[in-house]
């Protein structure tokens, strides 16, 4: 029994160390780059999948209006001026579904201009 428990503890320790190094490697990896266009009245992706702890850079552009890109749950926002590219980098520190939206009123379809970041643990 004791040997069994010791084996379990060893496995848990190895898993913990592996998890720690995996997270550290993810954090140290260059940010994943995701291009996202904001145009009346939608973003080019409605659902974006991210990994917890893995940095991401959104490369934002707009052809038609000074849209906003906002992820309130991560206190993240940028104005996206037409004809210019702007980047914003962050590391999601928790898993879940988080709304992103245009938070500059842009016209008739403004209320529909939103999407979801799906952040997973693995």
């Amino acid at each position: 029994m004791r040997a069994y428990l010791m084996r379990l503890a060893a496995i848990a320790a190895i898993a913990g160390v592996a998890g720690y190094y995996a997270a550290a490697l993810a954090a140290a990896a260059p940010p994943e780059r995701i291009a996202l266009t904001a145009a009346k009245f939608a973003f080019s992706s409605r659902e974006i999948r991210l990994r917890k702890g893995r940095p991401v850079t959104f490369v934002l552009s707009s052809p038609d209006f000074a849209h906003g890109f906002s992820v309130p749950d991560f206190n993240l926002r940028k104005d996206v001026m037409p004809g210019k590219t702007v980047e914003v980098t962050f590391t999601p520190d928790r898993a879940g579904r988080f709304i992103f939206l245009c938070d500059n009123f842009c016209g008739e379809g403004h209320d529909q201009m939103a999407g979801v970041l799906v952040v997973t643990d693995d």
Partner: protein
Amino acid sequence: MATTIDRREFLKLAGIGGAVFASGLPGCATTGAAQEDFYFVQLSDIHLGYDNPKVNPEAKSTLARAVAAVNSLEQKPDFVVFTGDLTQTTDEPKIRRQRLTEFRDIAAGLKVPKVYYFAGEHDAALDRGEAYQEIIGGPLYYTYDHKGVHFIVLDNISDPAPILGEKQIEWLKADLARQKTDAPIVVLTHRPLFPLYPQWDWATRDGMQAVDALMPYKNVTVFYGHIHHEHHHRTGHIEHHASRAIMFPLSPVGTAPAKTQLPWDAARPFNGLGFRTVEAGAGGAGPKMWEQPLVKA
């Protein structure tokens, strides 16, 4: 003619058919001598020009119904205030002007001594209030006084970004500096000043700067619209009350995965739509309010 209403008489007259929300503020007891008490009506989110029969098949007549409902109140209010989104937004400046003109003409049917207006983002964000000021008239933010109560109208809608802006916040501070700290103050605005739910655009980015400026004042109440349902919140001692909409109701936070216009219920037409009657006064009691249905059952 100005009318001083006994508070118990007002309760009798204005409370019929409406749900009452009583202030829980310390010092805002519901008893005591009425001192120049009066009442006003808040109408919000009219969205004239809105067109979605699944949500409101009576859209074309809804503002006229609201005007008739206010005109049929047993006790005439001292004034009506429209708290923004008078029209449904449009990318066409010509249509925006047509809608604002139609709104103005129907609202002119209100049989009340005074009507105050201010814009919502649907009216003003795409042209920074140009058409609104041309047709409805007046500044986008302003103050007025009524029977000892100081009203402050704030504009968090005429910039496409939901902000008040540094200039307006300085203007607010300068106005407040002229008020006593126990002065009764009512703030009227379209969007919530506090971050109710920024995920659905229910916030003003710099709104808490205004709340901070208001904080030294003991008797402040904020009335707003934008979220299309009744909501009550407190930041410190300051209460914030959102009104129902005239045109369509929106789902409260936590009841839908996304901001949702609630569908029309044929069994209960105009369900969730309505306006607010507010009793206020300089007598030291905080405002009391009643949510009135657009159409009485």
